[in-house]
Every structure is written in C-alpha cells, then in structure tokens.
C-alpha cells in the first residue's frame, strides 16, 4: 500500500517465540504508519491502548472494547481488524496503519469525500469507518453498493451516517482517486 512505504521504514523482525514474558513490560518492535517503533508493553495491553496511550495516536477510538462496534479499526499487515481485540504483543514484527497514516500533504480522497458528503456527525466512529472504506477501495476499486455495505457492516454509527458514508465511497470509486 503506497502510504506505508515511507523511505525510512524498514521491516521489523519477527518477535522472539518460545520464551515467556510478562506480567511486566516486554520489548516489541512494530511498524506504525511507516515508522519502526521499539516499545515496552504489558502483555495485557491491547493494540488500541498502545496506539492511543503510548504513541499518542488518539485518532483510533475505543468504544465497546469487545469487537462489536469497529470504531477501533486499524490495519494489521493491510487487513482491517478491531484493535481492541488484538494484544500489542501479538503485532510484534508486524505493520500497523492507523487513521493518522492515511493523509499525506492532503487528506486521503476518502477523508475528503466524507467531508463533502457530510458523512460525519459526532465523529466518534468516523476514523474506523474511514479505515474500512479505504481498505475496501484498495482491494475493490469499483465496489457495488452491496460490497460497501458488507465492508462497513461491522461499524456502529449512532448518528446514522451510513447512507452518506456509502455515497462518499461510491463517489471516490467513480472519480477513481485512491491515494492522497
């Protein structure tokens, strides 16, 4: 994915297997938004907590904390996952992309389309929704409405922005702009 290949980024090495660590902090290395980070994390810390609290990447939101609302969606190795149900120690050696990793100089076209289509109200679910929509367009540049609905099916938006989100994604697909 183009936004993950910052020139200074190198692949992390796979974490040590076999050994037992914890309950105190353990060292991990992971790539976040193109930058390799060495961190000390508790085995009990989730990826969502580490992104927010240790790396100050607070765009990722924790709402249900049970994998049932998708507001914490980030990508691990390019696949959207609920970061509240992934332990940080599991992503040792992996590549994470959060909402902060999408925009370059300009916003990502999906972010711009959300603004244009008024697909945000309170905004709490928005970063997660954007991550799912961009992931969809990476694999399906011209999705059908049904495919958009399936891709965002795990997201809860209490403001009910769904129709605007769908319109925004289809608009980006129609215009064929996929990266900032």
């Amino acid at each position, binding site marked *: 994915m183009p936004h993950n290949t910052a020139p200074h980024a190198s692949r992390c090495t796979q*974490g040590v*297997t*076999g*050994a*037992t*660590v*914890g*309950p*105190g902090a*353990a060292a991990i290395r992971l790539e976040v938004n193109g930058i390799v980070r060495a961190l000390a994390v*508790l*085995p*009990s810390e*989730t990826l969502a907590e580490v992104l927010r609290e240790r790396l100050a990447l607070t765009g990722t939101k924790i709402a249900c*904390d*049970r*994998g*049932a609302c*998708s507001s914490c*969606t980030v990508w*691990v190795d390019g*696949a*959207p*996952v*609920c970061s509240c*149900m*992934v*332990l940080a*120690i*599991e992503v040792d050696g992996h590549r994470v992309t959060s909402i902060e990793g999408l925009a370059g100089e300009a916003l990502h076209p999906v972010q711009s389309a959300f603004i244009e289509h008024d697909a945000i109200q309170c905004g709490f679910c928005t970063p997660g929704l954007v991550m*799912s929509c961009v992931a969809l367009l990476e694999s399906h540049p011209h999705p059908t409405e049904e495919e958009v609905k*399936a*891709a965002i*099916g*795990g*997201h809860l938006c209490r403001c009910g922005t769904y129709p605007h989100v769908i319109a925004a994604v289809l608009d980006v697909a129609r215009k064929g702009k996929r990266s900032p």
Partner: protein
Amino acid sequence: MDAFEWMSPQDIEQAARAATTTVAAAMVRDSGEPAAGDALLKAGGIDLLDLMKEGLLKPRRLIHLRNIAGLDRIEGAEGGLRIGPNVTLSQLASHAEVRMRFRALAQAAGASASPQIRHLATLGGNLLQRPRCWYLRSRAHHCTRKGGDRCFAFGGENQYHAIFDHKGCAIVHPSTCATALIAFGARLEITGPRGARRAPSVEEFLLLPEADLHRENTLEPGEIVTAIVLPAPAQATRSLHIKQCETESFDWPLADVAVVLDLESGVCRKAAVVLGAAAPAPHRARAAEAALTGKRIEEPVIRVAARAALQGAAPLAKNGYKLPIFETLLRRALLAATEG
C-alpha cells in the same frame, strides 16, 4: 485487563505441556471470583479476551497458538480438505476450493461476525468459543454451566435460547461454522500431552448438557485441536448454509441451517440437515434427512422435510418464534441448494 504472562510456543508439544486447564473448566467454580493461576490457550483471542475483560477468567498466563508453524494451512487430504485450526474465518470464506466444494462452510464462515473480526478469529477458536448465553456471561449469575445450581434461562429472558435438548441448561451452541462442519461430517485431529487421540467427528466432539453441564465439548486440559478434516464429498454434492439474524449486519444468528445433499439427476441419495442456534450442540434433523432420502427434491418434499426438522422441538416461553424461522430457512436452503 489484569496483567498476565505471555508465552508464544513454536510447536504443539510445548503448547500442550504449558496449558494447565481448559477455558470451560476454568470457569467452573463454587461461587465468587474466577480462579487465578491458570495457563490458557489463545488463538485469535476474540472469545478469550472478551471473557477476561468481563472478569469471568483471570489467567496467569496465555499461550499464544498463532506462531506455531503449519497450523494455518488448508491442504488436500484424501480427496477432502485438512484445515489448520489457525485458519481465519476470512481465509476460509475466500478460499476457492472451500467455496466450490464445501460451499456451506464458506458461507457460514463468511456470514459470521464482521470483516474485522473474521480477519482475527480462527476456525479452531470459533468451534471452541463459549456460548453467548447472557447468564453464562454475567458475573452476577452463578448458573449451572459455571458450577451453580440453576439455569436462569428457564423462567428468565430466554428469547435467544434453545428449542431442543435443553435439559438442565438452555444455551445454544455459538459456532456458526459448526453447523456446516457437522453437515459435512468433519472430524477433528486432537493432540494432548500424551500424544494424539482417535479423531472424533465434530458431532461426537460436541456435548449436550445431559452428557456434561459444564462444557460444550470433550476437549481435555492440554489438548490442542491440530486440524479440522473435511472428508471428500460425493461427486454431485450440493450444499448451502443460511442464517437469520435480528439485524442485517453482524451478529450471532437467531437461527441458521446447513444442508448437504448428494443428488443424482435430481434424486437425493443422502442428506444432512443441521440446525444451528437451536440446541446446546448443532441439531441434526434426522427426520428431515429421512424425508429427503430417496426422493426427488421438489416443493412438496421440501415442505414435508422442513416441517419434519422441527419434530421434538420444545420451545421455551419466549423463543417459539424460532420454529417458523427454521422452517422457512430450511425451505429456502433446500430450494436454493437444488437450484445451484
């Protein structure tokens, strides 16, 4: 979450030796707090972390299975498929051969949870997840399944509970994939601290409350499911899985059905009909299977079979609505299976 130790073994033997108990056994207690000190197996962690966050488990150590090489493969085996337990639901749903030859399983996996969860959740963990019963998952309810002396679903909020086989406990089995696995006659390869045991069918592996109130399957401490094996289907096999949820998006089903039909020029030689979210283990509807076997699968036969599937149902106060849903799902599944 409370702090715990983390171990990421490289091989199955090391993992089997490290596990002190099963999740089901760890949740059985006299009353009060869950036991501390257990070492528990973790795959995707979707169910395990949920139980820990709810304060229903307090393990001392997690044994992460996902770095064990070779457990995430799907390979051909004697005309069928051998699926590693770490294969994710999204890999299963998109695998070309699974979609073509074991369509009902790809459908069941692809319709479970959300895309984000399917990228994390494994087939092994899906089969071994604990039931969704809100009394089981409530710290305030010391129910029979956790070692208490009553099932709160009887006389309680039982709209999502079982309509069959609910003697002493009215959970429904939570695994949507299990419905399809049983319809295909899948078997499990299991290794424990003393080596491999004879591979049980998924049907034998899953238990009803009358066999054991405290666990949904025969997994023993230290045992690891190392493969889910699908036998070769007959040449003209048609299969289908459909589920009905309360909402259109992600959720465990109110009702789901899997049908696997061996058809020869429209005549059914063998049928498997399994109902999910109907009983504490996926419910094999043998009367429906009998009604289909030897028959040409057409509207009147389908109607009789769908009705027969509900023989023996004993709905609770609030879940009688499941009966017409199952009947309709089965009619749809049988019609669609024969069409395509």
